[in-house]
């Protein structure tokens, strides 16, 4: 008995240094559970509800599939246009933010600061802001995606531009080329693969975001999904879920394929 107590005390004292942080953690977790209204009873009641829900969702509403094509397309279009706008804006900003292209430090730091500030802004706020300006619909969705992409893309582009080998640039300076010519002939060829890779990756992210934005009012398949659930039309909802999954998986596959095609062959210049 005493031996057991001794080993217990020894073990406990070994962890003494962990006592404080662990108890804080436990306290925080408990607090969070309270605020989040964690309730095992609700969870328990939820399980039969969940099974019931699944029963209602199957089989999916096959007739709904053709009708869901249009919203799915819309979601893609929103993501596409938003990403393109974002890429254009990010590219322009990145030229001003790159040290080897813009010697003016004040402008550079301002640009980098703006990009950083944008990255700090939660995307929801950007979307709600645009909705408040122009109302619901695809346009605020497109603008929200564009703006939310600029921060990340702008930084990645600017970093890529700064990492370019400076010597070809110098060779062109020595020839008497203008800045624009140097960018076009010495910088862009070097930086193009990175630009495209990052853009494709962002497009992927934006498709998922576009689905979400649809739920918040931009239209598209996200919207249809939310509506069908609110109307308790679970079979249609399941069809919408299937469409979303196909969309996401197809786009992932597509960007994988595009990436290997473009970079595997070094077609890009």
């Amino acid at each position, binding site marked *: 008995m005493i031996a057991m107590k001794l080993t217990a005390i020894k073990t406990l004292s070994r962890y003494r240094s962990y006592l404080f942080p662990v108890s804080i953690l436990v306290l925080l977790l408990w607090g969070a559970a309270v605020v989040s209204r964690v309730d095992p009873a609700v969870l328990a009641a939820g399980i039969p509800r969940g099974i019931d829900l699944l029963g209602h969702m199957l089989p999916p509403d096959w007739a709904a599939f053709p009708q869901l094509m249009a919203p799915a397309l819309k979601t893609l279009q929103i993501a596409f246009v938003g990403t*393109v706008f974002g890429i254009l804006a990010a590219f322009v900003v990145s030229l001003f933010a790159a040290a080897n292209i813009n010697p003016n430090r004040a402008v550079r730091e301002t640009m980098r600061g703006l990009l950083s500030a944008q990255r700090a802004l939660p995307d929801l706020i950007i979307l709600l802001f645009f909705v408040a300006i*122009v109302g619901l619909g695809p346009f605020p969705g497109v603008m929200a995606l564009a703006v939310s992409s600029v921060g990340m893309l702008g930084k990645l582009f600017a970093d890529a531009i700064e990492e370019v080998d400076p010597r070809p640039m110098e060779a062109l300076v020595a020839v008497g080329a203008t800045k624009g010519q140097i960018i076009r002939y010495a910088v862009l060829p070097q930086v193009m693969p990175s630009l495209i890779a990052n853009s494709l990756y962002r497009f992927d992210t934006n498709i998922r975001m576009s689905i979400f934005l649809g739920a918040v009012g931009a239209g598209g398949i996200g919207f249809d999904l939310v509506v069908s659930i609110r109307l308790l039309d679970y079979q249609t909802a399941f069809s919408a*879920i299937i469409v979303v999954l196909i969309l996401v998986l197809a786009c992932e596959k597509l960007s994988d394929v595009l990436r290997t095609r473009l970079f595997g062959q070094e077609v890009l210049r």
Partner: protein
Amino acid sequence: MNKHPKKQKQNEEVHYQRWYRRWFWPGSFFMLLFVWCLFALNISPRQFWEGIPHFFSLVSEMFPPNWAVFTRGKVLWSILEVLSMAFLGTFLGTLFSFFLALLAAGNLTPSPLVRTAAKWLMAAERAVPTLIIILLLVVVVGLGPFAGMIALAIGSVGMLGKLFAEAMENVDPKPLESLVSTGASKLQVIRYAVLPQVAPSLIANTLYKFDINLRAALFLGVVGGGGIGFELHLAMSLFRYADALAITVMTLVVVWLAEKISDYLRRRIIGQEVLQ
């Protein structure tokens, strides 16, 4: 690397292609696609043009921000809700991801079948947009932060599970081997050889996911998850722009603070491990 010949007077293969020729087909395709999308979405310069006066009127209605909105306890509480959702959700997600990763790591898994199943689970979760998860959860457990918290927990499994599994697979095998050779059980090996090596990376990834989840929690509020996202959306929908600005500012401050703390913790913990 051969390029297509372009028309020239002589009959030799020609070398130089102007950019618009090289990119003619992909370029035109892209342009057509783009313009088609613009038309389909009804986007035109006019939308931009008409938006500008709306922008100014919005700004004028937003200022000054109505800080009184926080005297209504509900709004203040919803800030706690997002933080709690993100915190608890990430914690539970991390826990579950850890155990899942143990099953998915090549050097630790009990069987290849289990490994495939675990990896498949993680990939499946990554594929499913969190929107779907939250919408279904709301039906099952009702509106509010509980659903949001579970959605975030589930939503963390794919990313954290993969990162954890990779960290475990990249562990230095020598300490494991030496422990196994002394007859330690699998659990002991994990506790004493694997865990210490992966702990910094685990914690760093968890903190990173927390940042992501906090922002996600804002979105979840709008679709039924509770939290300040909901309040913000509500204020905007009711055109109470001064309220909305106050809520926005508070949200920005909270998110920024949380990310700063997360950064600090990450640096402290990684720093400690490095020193050790």
